[in-house]
């Protein structure tokens, strides 16, 4: 236990009696006990229901053009879902852009199905405690990469560029707190309350973090997409809200995804 942990424990002890018990024990093997809890709930993930819903949405004709998304090219050819997420983000010739899963789904829903973009991006994550269509579609697609090794390419110059910009965004300090992603995610043994924060400079941590999103968030009763995860990181840093599927989010995703290369994709995850 290092000095700062001791200080934290003392601080908590002085605050409340009930928390003291948790914190004192926590100093012994907090992370192990949380890991034990996570292991015990790993089977039976309610995200499965979102995968089922997403699969239906993928196969069912929809939008003004009344067509399904089965012709959507996620990078491995029209309609190929298996393994697609393990290679995203990637450069797409048709849009001349690097796209992550959600921005690519947005392209398919607008071009193939004819759904106005604003209809999708107005509430891109959830409304009325129900996951959005694009979010459920994303859950379905990522589930089809379970067990497949992350292999995000940097061959195309645009992919390399997105990665480099993403890396800069990761380290970019701004906002009223002068925060960067790296403030919390580039050091080991940092936590928020009980949760250890992943250090993206450590490959194993980066892999574990990236491959467990999207995830069903128990406290919200919803499966949350990767775009949501980044949106919420920006909020926590008190940054302006990033536009859904915008370049800044795709580039940052590119940096994080590449840092997870080589690890088997394990999502959708299940988080507190």
């Amino acid at each position, binding site marked *: 236990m290092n000095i700062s942990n001791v200080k934290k424990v003392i601080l908590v002890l002085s605050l409340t009696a*009930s928390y003291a*018990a*948790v914190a004192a*024990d*926590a100093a012994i093997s*907090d992370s192990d*006990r*949380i890991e*034990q*809890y*996570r292991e*015990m*709930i790993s089977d*039976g993930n309610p995200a499965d229901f979102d995968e089922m819903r997403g699969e239906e949405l993928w196969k069912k004709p929809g939008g003004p053009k009344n067509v399904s998304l089965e012709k959507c090219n996620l990078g491995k050819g029209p309609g190929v879902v298996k393994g697609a997420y393990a290679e995203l983000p990637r450069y797409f010739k048709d849009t001349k852009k690097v796209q992550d899963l959600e921005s690519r789904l947005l392209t398919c829903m607008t071009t193939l199905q004819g759904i106005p973009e604003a209809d999708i991006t107005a509430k891109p994550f959830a409304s009325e405690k129900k996951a959005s269509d694009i979010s459920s579609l994303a859950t379905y697609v990522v589930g089809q990469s379970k067990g497949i090794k992350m292999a995000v390419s940097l061959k195309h110059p645009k992919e390399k560029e997105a990665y480099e910009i993403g890396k800069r965004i990761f380290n970019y300090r701004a906002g009223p707190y002068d925060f960067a992603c790296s403030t*919390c995610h580039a050091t080991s043994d940092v936590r*928020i*309350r*009980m*949760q250890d*924060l992943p250090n993206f400079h450590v490959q194993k941590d980066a892999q574990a973090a990236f491959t467990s999103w999207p*995830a069903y*968030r*128990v*406290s919200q009763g919803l499966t949350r997409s990767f775009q949501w995860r980044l949106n*919420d990181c920006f909020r*926590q840093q008190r940054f302006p809200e990033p536009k859904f599927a915008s370049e800044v989010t795709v580039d940052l995703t590119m940096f994080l995804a590449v840092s997870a290369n080589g690890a088997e994709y394990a999502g959708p995850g299940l*988080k*507190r």
Partner: protein
Amino acid sequence: MNKEINLGRREALKAGGGIGLMAVLGAYGLLNSTAAMAEWNKAAFSSKAMDEAFAAMGAANPEVNATAIQLSVPEIAENGAIVPVTVSSTLANVEQITIFVDKNQNVMAANFIFPAGTESMVTTRVKMGQTANVVALVKADGKFYRTAKEVKVTAGGCGG
């Protein structure tokens, strides 16, 4: 938590429970006319204290037995909304396993009935409002046994 709120909750529960039971029996009539279900024990499920719940289950003073009942719960639950609980027993002729959370408003969470041929174990998930004991009550050969374990519930933070 003040008394007024508690009373309000109890009244709300009473109303909900009453309508519920009727509906349950009605639906089961349609769903399954051949095999009768064990009745949803309203008195037990509305109990606010462990002794009250035990009594409602016909288990006035169950014997404490932490060796013949295996209760597996996490030491810490990151989120009280999902607390995994596994109960199994090495006792012969286990008929019933009941799971309680001693500090929840309604202490009884779930009751399981084991026909012959079904192994004496079950895993489920319960909600916990705060750090509390998970209690397992096992009925074997007509006799009741119990054991308990504490689960520390942390209020989750941000991030993840």
